[in-house]
């Protein structure tokens, strides 16, 4: 394969950041025969990357055929649990389904391993990988992005792909994207706890490489916007909290202490008991939904993945990696045509956001556009969980007082809660529409 670009540039395309979005974009463009440089600031791809851990990976079958068979995935998620936590109780919606094992739409992953593999696929496809190098800035000439500055060197390209993650300092420095409001951001704080395979399978009622994913709301964040998560890997658990920054900043709480509090909650502790801490990490998460998906192109520049704000919290599923891969596919298609036509203008690259709108990425962002506002509702994180637990307590606590119908029990629980009936019904309707 010809990896030398035309004389006027060093590479056809330079991709900044070897996460899922960057690697998939680089891979697809290299397959089309373009010369691609993939620059990664970590000493090896994946060494800077962290995610909660569930990858809705169906899109990878298009991006990298054979992904499920050869990628280092941990477990296939066949059991999903939504858990409302209070200080002394939890109410779970527990959904397990063999069909999920057949269709394999969700897998748990550990990014240090996954991303290293992705970058290796890129190299095999002809991408030049440059690890251990930080891209310091985008080079712009007359409003056109023409290359990158890295480690004192300048490298030019027809198109630069910013895949540099949620902070996207490159886009920020270049004035392409401004800082986001705090309510659009959350911090995920995570521990990876090692446990023997057999213990994990017993504790989570799993067999083979099937896995479980818990999403938890309520007491795990002390009622702050956000939630907890607990995912099974092959021989470890990914466990932690996600805290919305506006609430966290206002609250006086400490992110590390909220993480510790969740790990020591009786409902969580019983899963982790006896495990060995393998790693403690954190990562910023975009939570703004569609409101963050703006300014995705400039002449000579496309922005993909987290850098483009492409993440989606629907309450049930928290998605980012699948949107990263989807945006990479869309971007690679548009950049490929741009390279073939030699047109890297704003108009040419604006085909990329239009492509996003045609596939699940843009459509899901639009479908769930009201989810962030709904999830800003402070009752979501405390009062509703306590209400549910009070209702269930009434059902099961047969203390020899005469029983009443469920409706009366719900009425009593509501009376003892700061919630009122009408707003609760309104929230429920809003939730059904938003999620």
């Amino acid at each position: 394969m010809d990896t030398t670009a035309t004389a006027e540039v060093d590479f056809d395309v330079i991709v900044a950041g070897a996460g899922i979005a960057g690697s998939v974009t680089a891979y697809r463009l290299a397959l089309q025969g373009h010369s691609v440089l993939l620059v990664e600031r970590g000493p090896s791809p994946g060494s800077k990357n962290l995610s909660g851990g569930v990858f809705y990976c169906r899109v990878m079958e298009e991006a990298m055929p054979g992904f499920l068979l050869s990628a280092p995935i941990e477990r296939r998620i066949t059991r999903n649990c939504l858990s409302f936590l209070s200080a002394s109780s939890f109410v779970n919606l527990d959904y397990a389904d063999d069909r999920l094992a057949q269709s394999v739409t969700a897998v748990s992953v550990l990014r240090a391993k996954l991303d290293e593999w992705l970058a290796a696929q890129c190299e095999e496809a002809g991408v030049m990988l440059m690890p251990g190098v930080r891209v310091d800035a985008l080079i712009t000439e007359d409003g056109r992005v023409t290359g990158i500055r890295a480690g004192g060197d300048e490298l030019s390209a027809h198109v630069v792909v910013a895949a540099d993650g949620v902070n996207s300092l490159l886009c920020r420095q270049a004035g392409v994207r401004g800082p986001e409001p705090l309510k659009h951001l959350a911090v995920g704080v995570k521990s990876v706890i090692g446990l023997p395979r057999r213990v994990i399978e017993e504790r989570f009622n799993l067999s083979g490489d099937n896995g479980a994913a818990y999403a938890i709301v309520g007491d795990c964040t002390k009622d702050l916007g956000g939630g907890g998560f607990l995912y099974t890997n092959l021989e470890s658990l990914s466990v932690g909290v996600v805290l919305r920054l506006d609430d966290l900043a206002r609250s006086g709480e400490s992110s590390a202490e909220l993480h510790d509090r969740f790990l020591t909650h009786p409902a969580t502790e019983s899963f982790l008991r006896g495990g060995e801490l393998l790693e403690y990490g954190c990562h910023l998460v975009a939570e703004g939904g569609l409101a963050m998906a703006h300014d995705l192109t400039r002449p000579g520049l496309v922005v993909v993945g987290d850098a483009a704000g492409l993440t989606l919290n629907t309450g049930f599923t928290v998605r980012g990696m699948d949107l990263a891969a989807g945006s990479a596919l869309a971007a690679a298609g548009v950049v490929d045509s741009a390279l073939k036509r030699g047109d890297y203008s704003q108009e040419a690259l604006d085909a990329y956001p239009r492509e996003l709108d045609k596939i699940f990425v843009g459509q899901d962002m639009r479908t769930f556009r009201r989810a962030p506002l709904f999830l800003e509702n402070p009752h979501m994180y405390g009062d509703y969980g306590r209400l549910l637990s009070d209702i269930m307590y009434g059902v099961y606590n047969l203390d020899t007082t005469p029983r009443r119908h469920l409706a009366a029990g719900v009425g009593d629980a509501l009376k003892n809660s700061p919630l009122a009936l009408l707003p609760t019904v309104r929230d429920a309707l809003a939730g059904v529409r938003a999620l």
Partner: protein
Amino acid sequence: MSKNPWGTVAERLDRNRYETDTEQSHILVNQAEAERAGAGPLLARICPARVYSEQANGEIGVLYAACLECGTCLAAAPPGVLSWSYPRGGMGVIYREG
């Protein structure tokens, strides 16, 4: 404070792998601006790695070698308080799990 069986934040970070840039810090605090904005307590509690601490002399201490490079401090700090970039290429935290 909840007692984490895997130790304090510092003890847990000890198990992580880092390649520390001993020549330069990637985090700089404008101490005057931080004091004016009262940013110390906020930075100290929002950082999951406890990079920031309030010193006896009122300044903010920065243990940049512990940084997990998430960017929470940059997002939440009042404007002008922090100058924050990623560590130089190859430096900083090296996740083995992620």
